[in-house]
Each structure stands twice: as structure tokens, then as C-alpha cells.
């Protein structure tokens, strides 16, 4: 199990999904799937920055880069060794 991906997935489940929502996996589209919108993406970015003590530049924080747990993990790994 990939710990980073599990942390991101659990955060998304707890913060952005309503109870009884369909389960998500690492590839579930988050932005294009309407689970996380562009405003909510700010709080998800902030969570990652706080948790891993990193700064994700705005130009890297694109809807495409946040569109799945896998893609977010890939982004985070550019800034920190997890």
C-alpha cells in the first residue's frame, strides 16, 4: 500500500465526499468528476502543503494535476521525498 496515496485518498473521502457516496480509487477523476471543484482545490492544496511542509507553485496546481489521487501523489513527490 502506498502511504502517500492512502493519506490523500482518505483526506478526499473525509473532506469532499458526502456519506454514502460511491467509493473512489486512486484513478477516480476528482476535478473532472465534480468531486473537488476549483475553489475546493485550494483547501486540498493547502492540506498537502501543511502536511508535507512544501510549497506547490500555483502554476503547478492545475486541474489536470489534481484530477486523481495518483496525479496528486505524483505532484507531491516532485517536492518532497515520501
Amino acid at each position, binding site marked *: 500500500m502506498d502511504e502517500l496515496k492512502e493519506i490523500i485518498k482518505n483526506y478526499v473521502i473525509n473532506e469532499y465526499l458526502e456519506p454514502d457516496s460511491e467509493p473512489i480509487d486512486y484513478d477516480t477523476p476528482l476535478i473532472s*468528476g465534480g468531486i473537488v471543484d476549483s*475553489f475546493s482545490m485550494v483547501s486540498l492544496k*493547502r492540506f498537502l502543503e501543511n502536511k508535507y511542509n512544501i510549497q506547490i507553485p500555483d502554476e503547478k496546481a492545475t486541474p489536470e494535476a489534481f484530477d486523481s489521487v495518483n496525479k496528486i501523489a505524483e505532484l507531491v513527490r516532485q517536492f518532497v521525498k515520501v
Partner: protein
Amino acid sequence: MTNFGNYEERVKNFSWALSEQELGYKPGQRINIGWYCSDRVCQLGKAKKVALIWEGFTGEKKIFTYDDLRLYSNTIAQFLTDLGIKAGERVCLFMDRVPELYIGFVGILKTGAIAQPLFSAFGEESLFIRLENAQTSAIFTQKKHISKVRKIRDRLPHLKHIIIVDYDGKSPLQEREGPFSMEGSKKVEHYEIYPTYAETPSVIHYTSGTTGMPKGVQHVHYSLISQYITAKWVLDLKDDDIYWCTADPGWVTGTSYGIIAPFTLGVTQCVLDSGFSAEAWYKFIEKNKVTVWYSAPTAIRSLMKAGDEVVKKFDLSSLRHLASVGEPLNPEAVNWSIRVFGKPFHDTYWQTETGCIVITNFPGMPVKPGSMGRPFPGITATVLNPNNYEPYPEPGRIGLIGLKPGWPSMMRTYWNNEEAYKNKFRNGWYLTGDRARIDREGYFWFVGRDDDVINTAGHLVSPFEVESALLEHPSVAESAVVSKPDPINMEVVKAFVTLKPGFSPSKDLELDIMNFIRKKLSPLAMPQEIEFVASLPKTRSGKIMRRILHAKEWGEEIGDTSTLENE
């Protein structure tokens, strides 16, 4: 050749009767938007024409003809009638951009009930405030949003029916809940449309002000007269167009120009029920050969941010007219669209209260990048001196945008709040709350809001509403909310907060408060920055001076501080 033609000629010869005649409406007769959107188009011989091309984020696609629109809206109307919903009752649509949202809106209007679309990203408190204020009788929603409704249901005694459009039987229904499958129900061929007239209420959209709770802007069926002709002339919609309005019908653009106008005009429109991504949007335009595209500055700036290279990957040559609404369109965005699409975005200006476009850049006329354009024929718009509410006689002066009431889609009142409605008028002018100047050629130039309302990505957020919600967080003692500049969304919400004893500022606390507001109100209302302060600037009488905080955020002069408590 554009539908609009020559500005001066149109202004000289204009009468709203022109639109009435094109729609075959005579004053005093029945008028029902639901009938105009579906049955009439079929009677004009377009029953087999495609009305709606819908695509979900997974690529799933559905196509509805005008006859489908007629039959399914009849089916929804009959379903509501069978539930006992009566004319004048409020029926809420709380859904993502699924076909049931668009067709349900038409069906509700056929029953004579009032449609109340609400943005599906609203949190439970935002939803509660609006359902309680409207005393809504029924709500259409989806499985994914039902938990928000369940949390507030007990506080909503008027809410008799909670209708789930995608119920799959996997979890039990609860109190007042019932399933409805639009495509699974027996189609209703004949539905007796309720006899609505010009002044019969049709739609309530909620909007935010500086003070108080959100206000329900009430429109009537006669609004169609404005929405039809403005769409025809400003969006230049023609019979063979493929039209894409990117607005969500939870907001007024998504109903006036995402449902009412295009369907009444009998054009084919497409809908993408997906979050934003530049590639997905361009692909959607290419695939559907979109010809007329009505979008928003925030989306356009997001496309700009994605870069020019991605545009080149797609064939966007079908595009013939581009328009924008929601907040001022900056000149850079207009010039960018000329460079990459070969044509400018035309800025359009209007509000929930106006129901239709009132000031705009017209097709076929030169666009002045950064300008709002000129008043629509039949609309008297001016810039008022804020001291006496008289129009400035000379161009170039900055004042309040005032509109002379009387066009068909002007709001009729704020729901249950006649006092707030009356407060919107001075000296015979409707006050938009926006400031502008007019140049020598009669073009309006937006300057800013005249109040503290925050315009984020084209949506108005009330600082009062966010401040009230912040106080419910266990750590917050006092709060003040202002806008701060943002390169994509124009403005975003910023909160200044003092903490209760026992709490200390931290990044985790900031995130916790952000998420608290996001879930309670909406992602739009979530402060994107929270500044913890020891105290807030107040007048000697204890009123928080947002003005000072706003000025600091925008790098403006703070102005008179003689009433400041600590001075």
C-alpha cells in the same frame, strides 16, 4: 450578417412588442415559458431537431430532441401534479448539470409552480437558508447530494417531497423521500399546462447582498420576452447553431441563457457535466462543432493560464461567436481570444435582478477590449451621481450604474422581502450596485462594486453571510470578511479573524476554518486566506470597519479614519 444589424437603427425602432410578435404573444394572453421551450418549438416543425446534447465527465452521452423535451417535461409536470404540487408552490432543483435539471426546469414551469434552482455545491446551511426562505414544497436532487438535504430536513416543515432522480435501491429511502426516473417513467403525451400569464411568478434565484441573508429574486413568465430577443441579438443565435453556455443553471445565466432562451429559439445546445479542464473543454467544442460559446471571465483566464499550445491541438474552427458574462472581462482576455480563436469574446453585463443582458458588446460591432459595451435597445442605462441619483450630464464621470425599470425580465420583487426590493430604487432608477463611467461613444466601463459584496468567479458572496458562519466555528471570536484580488477569479474571499482564549493561530487551524465554511456554505464562500489578528478595526460604536481591511488588501488609500476606535 448578424441578427442584430445596426445599433442606431435598432435603438430608433425598438419596442418590446417586436419580441412579442416574433413569439406570437399578445398582451393579456396566456404565456408559459415551459410551453415556449418545448411544445411551441415542436408545433413549428422542429420536433425531431436536437434540443440538448448532454455529456457526462465519463464521456457518457445523451441526446434529446425537442419532442423528447416536450414529452419528458410533460412527464415531470404530471409527476409533480400527481404529488399534489400546486401552482405558485416552490420546487427546487438541486442537482449537477444532468438532463433532469434542464428538462425538470421546463416541467416545473408547465405546472405553474415556481422553479428554484440552487447550485449543487452549496453546503447544508446555504441550502437550508434558501429552502426555508422560499418555503419550498419539493426538491429534486441526486443520491450524491441527498445527505445534505437529510441534515436539514427536520428544520424544513414545508418541504413535503424529496425526489431522488437517480435512486438505485441500494440504500433505503427515508422520510419524505421518493424516487423518480425521468427516462424510466411512462412518457406523458398530453399535459394540461397551467394557465400562466405575464405576471405569474416563474423562477426564484437567490443572490447575496452586503447585509442580511440571501435574497430570492423573483421573475415572471413575461421575462421570456427579454430573454428571447437578447439571446437572438446579443448571442446571435441562429437556427443551425450549436450553442454552449458553460454556466450552471444554479445561477441565473444558466437558466436565462442556458435553458429559457436557447430552447425558445429552437437551437441545439450542448452541456458538459464535468469540472473544468482546458483540454476537456476544447475537445468538447471540437467534438460537438460548437458555433456560439457563452462563458465567463474566470474560465477564459483559466484557459489563458493553460497556454496557447493546448489550443493548437484542437480544431476549433467551428466557433463563430464568443460571449462572456459574470464579471468584467479584462482587455488581456479579449486580446488573447482574438489571437488564439481569431475572434473576440464579447462582454455582456447583467444581473440576477435584471433577468437579461442589459449592457453589452454587440456582434458585428467593434469590441472595445475592457468595455462592458452599450445598452441593449429598450434599456435605459446611465451613470448616476451618488449624491443625488441624477444622471451625470457629461461622459467620463464615475458613478452608479442606474437602469430605468420597465423591461420584461426586471425582477418583480425579492421573495418575502419587499423592503429590500424598494431599497434598490432611487429617484426612479434601479440601482445595480455597480460603478462605471461612460465614454464619449456611449460605451460603459466597469469600475467596481458600490458595496462590500464579493464577486468571485462571477458569483456574488455576501461578507455578512461568511462572517456569520465563521462565528459558529468554535475558535472564532470575531471576524471580518473582504475581497482580495485574484488573477483568475478576479476576487476571492479573505477573512480576518480574532480567536477565542485557548486557541492559537496555526496553519492547521486556518485549514480547519476554511473547510468548515466550505462545507457549511459553499466552496465559493470559503476564505482562500485567513489572517489571524489580535483585534479588528472598529468604529467607536463597535462596528467593524471592513473598508479599512479592504483598502489594505487592494493597496488603496484607507481614507477617513476619524471614527476608528483606536485613533
